[in-house]
């Protein structure tokens, strides 16, 4: 068995180069005035931290947490019943129906965002059906968009846990006199928690850090933290402040991840 250990060494080198090195670089950029473009001499400075109290950054952080939190909650409230229904479905086309939930991922996400954007303007193809929406710039538009994009990632992990669940436990619970509801809350739901956790992570992370979705669906008016990072890196060239926000975001997300994954000792049930 130990004969195979060596196979993991190249990966260790590769990952060190592409994970640890840039992380060091980002940390360095965020606490110095190093100019990434010229890589000359640099001095330590906490100037970048001043950006953290910029109103736009504060608002973006609040927006990110609020919108991704609500979108994840909605996805859970819709996704759990869907996963439950699919898992208990008795159809010979069950796998096909379940697979259909993942197909949209093959469709380009930007295009799907644009499609929502087009529907949310008052003058749209929906006028053909006598409908006129005016949602651009509202939170609702962003929430619908996020739910539509990330719901499959909530459904699938929950489904796969429910699907594998040992039926005899449910029967045992019923035999012992528990009602359907009690069985659900005392047996099924606790056992499906690992799926809920994976689903939450898979929905929360991308929605929290999205930048094209809020940009399109808010008419450029709602900034999330991803918009700030993109702005600093690609538009204003403020790499040092952008790095600081990136590294903080990374730390927060890894902490959240570790917190949520207490159930999972080796971090292997991510997908």
């Amino acid at each position: 068995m130990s004969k195979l250990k060596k196979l993991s060494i190249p990966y260790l080198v590769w990952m060190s180069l592409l994970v640890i090195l840039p992380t060091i670089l980002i940390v360095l950029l965020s606490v110095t005035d190093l100019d990434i473009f010229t890589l000359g001499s640099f001095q330590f400075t906490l100037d970048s931290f001043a950006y953290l109290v910029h109103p736009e950054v504060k608002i973006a952080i609040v927006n990110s947490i609020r919108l991704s939190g609500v979108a994840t909650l909605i996805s859970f409230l819709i996704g759990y019943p869907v996963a439950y229904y699919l898992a208990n479905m008795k159809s010979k086309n069950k796998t096909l129906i379940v697979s259909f939930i993942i197909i949209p991922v093959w469709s380009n996400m930007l295009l799907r965002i644009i499609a929502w954007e087009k529907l949310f303007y008052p003058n749209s193809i929906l006028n053909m059906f006598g409908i006129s929406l005016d949602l651009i710039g509202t939170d609702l538009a962003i929430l619908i968009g996020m739910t539509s994009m990330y719901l499959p990632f909530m459904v699938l992990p929950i489904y796969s846990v429910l699907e594998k669940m040992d039926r005899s436990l449910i029967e045992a619970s019923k035999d012992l006199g528990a009602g359907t509801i009690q069985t659900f809350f005392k047996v099924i739901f606790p056992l499906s928690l690992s799926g809920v956790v994976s689903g939450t992570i898979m929905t929360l992370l991308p929605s929290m850090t999205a930048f094209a979705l809020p940009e399109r669906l808010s008419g450029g008016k709602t900034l999330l933290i991803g918009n700030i990072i993109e702005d600093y890196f690609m538009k204003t060239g403020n790499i040092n402040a952008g790095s600081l926000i990136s590294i903080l975001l990374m730390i927060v997300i890894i902490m959240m991840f570790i917190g949520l994954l207490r159930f999972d000792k080796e971090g292997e049930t991510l997908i």
Partner: protein
Amino acid sequence: MMNILKIIGKFFQKRSLAFITIFAYGIIYLPIAVIAFLSFNESSKSYIFTAFSLKWYGEIFLDERLFEAIVNTIMVALISTLVATLVGTFTAIGINSLRKRNRAKMMILNNIPVINPDIVTGVSLMLVFGLLPISFGMSTMLLAHIFFSIPFVVLSVLPKLKELDLNLFDAALDLGCTKFQGIIKVIIPSIKTSILAGALIAFTMSIDDFVISYFTTGNGFQNVSIWIYSRIGRRSFNPAVYSYNTLVVFITIIILIVINKLGYNKKTKGMIR
């Protein structure tokens, strides 16, 4: 309290569950339906449907930049999936044979790209590639895609490897196989479905990626997502891209139905997991 439980109980009745499921599929599929609808629109104006037309399907091949972007997308997805699957599988075999402590450490490293926000991964890679003596373009985008795909292959293959009885491998060695032969003949065949599932995830991640590609490309090398992003609202936004997208979805559905009909139920289950 009982009342709430009753309401929840009602909620979990089959009919309301079915209703929610249909609603969920609806909200997921609506944008795709809109894209398909627009792909058949004779007018290039997206807010008005003038007449049914297939002309945008022909345009896919006439718009050079778009066609190039499509070819680039598929090429990057194929190569990165191939490399990531090979490397990921062997790496997973390696990780699996590590002692528990080291394995956990490796998994933390492995999971960083998975949980790291795309935008941070993209920026990180851009910074590192900027230090290397390579020019930005296909090579950097490819490296980036391989980078974010491998962890998914590892995650997909590892659980299956754990179930595997490695005594079989040792037996193969005893019978005179080399290590490499042992892996190819004993280990790989028994984790086939997981490898395939990992490859599928890698391919899907690559073909749909925008953020990481956006930060790691250069010198005019575009994939479909970048093509779209740089043309939103512009005249050069060719509705042919709707047709391309509709075709991709259509082909995926067909493949799925065929696989289902052929009865490879096991495999599709593996893919979903």
